[in-house]
């Protein structure tokens, strides 16, 4: 059973989550790039919320949040950024879903978070290759694996840390 039922409460929770995603994504984008890393490498803090939505409300709300987040990026940062956000987000949600289903719920949060981060990268690189008309995927694959593992571990640990808090907030609401 989904923890949060359909209806007004669910709508309110989704709206709140989308607001958190927007804030985290804007915040992360306004921070200076992480030193010693390529300038387009970011942690993907807002994915924490999407993952929480995925695990506690199901894949469909997570998918909806992903699409809405891309719309927010499209509005605030333009077509390219929005398109890449959509590519990364969709691939990431689909692969996490695939892993959960294939492993019959036996993957840990950490692995799912890492898989999500890697696929977010790969989706963006694929989208970028498409926009550029030049294949980049092979060149960036090793780098995105390494940074995906790092970013996935960090966001997974953060998710783990805020989970009890979120549970309290959303339990009270839902």
């Amino acid at each position, binding site marked *: 059973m989904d923890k949060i039922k359909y209806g007004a409460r669910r709508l309110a929770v989704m709206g709140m989550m989308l607001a958190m995603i927007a804030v985290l994504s804007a915040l992360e984008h306004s921070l200076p790039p992480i030193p010693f890393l390529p300038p387009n490498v970011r942690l993907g803090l807002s994915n924490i919320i999407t993952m929480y939505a995925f695990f506690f409300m199901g894949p469909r709300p997570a998918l909806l949040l992903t699409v809405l987040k891309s719309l927010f990026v499209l509005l605030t940062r333009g077509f*390219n*950024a929005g398109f890449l956000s959509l590519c990364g987000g969709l691939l990431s949600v689909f692969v996490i879903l695939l892993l959960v289903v294939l492993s019959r719920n036996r993957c*840990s949060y*950490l692995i799912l978070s890492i898989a999500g981060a890697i696929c977010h990268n790969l989706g963006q690189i694929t989208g970028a290759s498409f926009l*550029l008309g030049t*294949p980049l995927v092979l060149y960036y694959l090793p780098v995105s694996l390494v940074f995906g*593992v790092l970013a996935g571990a960090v966001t997974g640990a953060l998710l783990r840390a805020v989970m009890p808090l979120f549970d309290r907030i959303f339990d009270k609401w839902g």
Partner: protein
Amino acid sequence: MSQKLQFIKKKDLWIISGLLAAAFFMLAVLMPGSAKNAGCYAEIYYDGKLAATAYLDEPRIFSIDGLPQVVFEVKDGAIAFIRSDCPDRICVNTGRLDRAGQLAACLPNRVSLRITGGHDDGGVDVVAR
């Protein structure tokens, strides 16, 4: 989907090590020679087509046809985007490239820069288009 999963399992460490090992293996194949490769040249792709090549040992500042707002500079055996009108400047911030396999791209202007050539970059030649 609401039952709690474990945060980490012992098996995870193997998966992570496997991923990292694969990544480093690919890095070793795709980017041979961590030293600067003499005789490398940069290929500049605009809209998916090769628009210019530049040898890294011939210092110059240039733009490609049809894209005067993006400026490249070759200096001290490295090439960099030094100016672009794009909003995020990821291309400029990528900095100087001097090794085979390195890559910088400017999505808004649909232009990418890739270092190829050098002496032993057989791995890069394998990439099919």
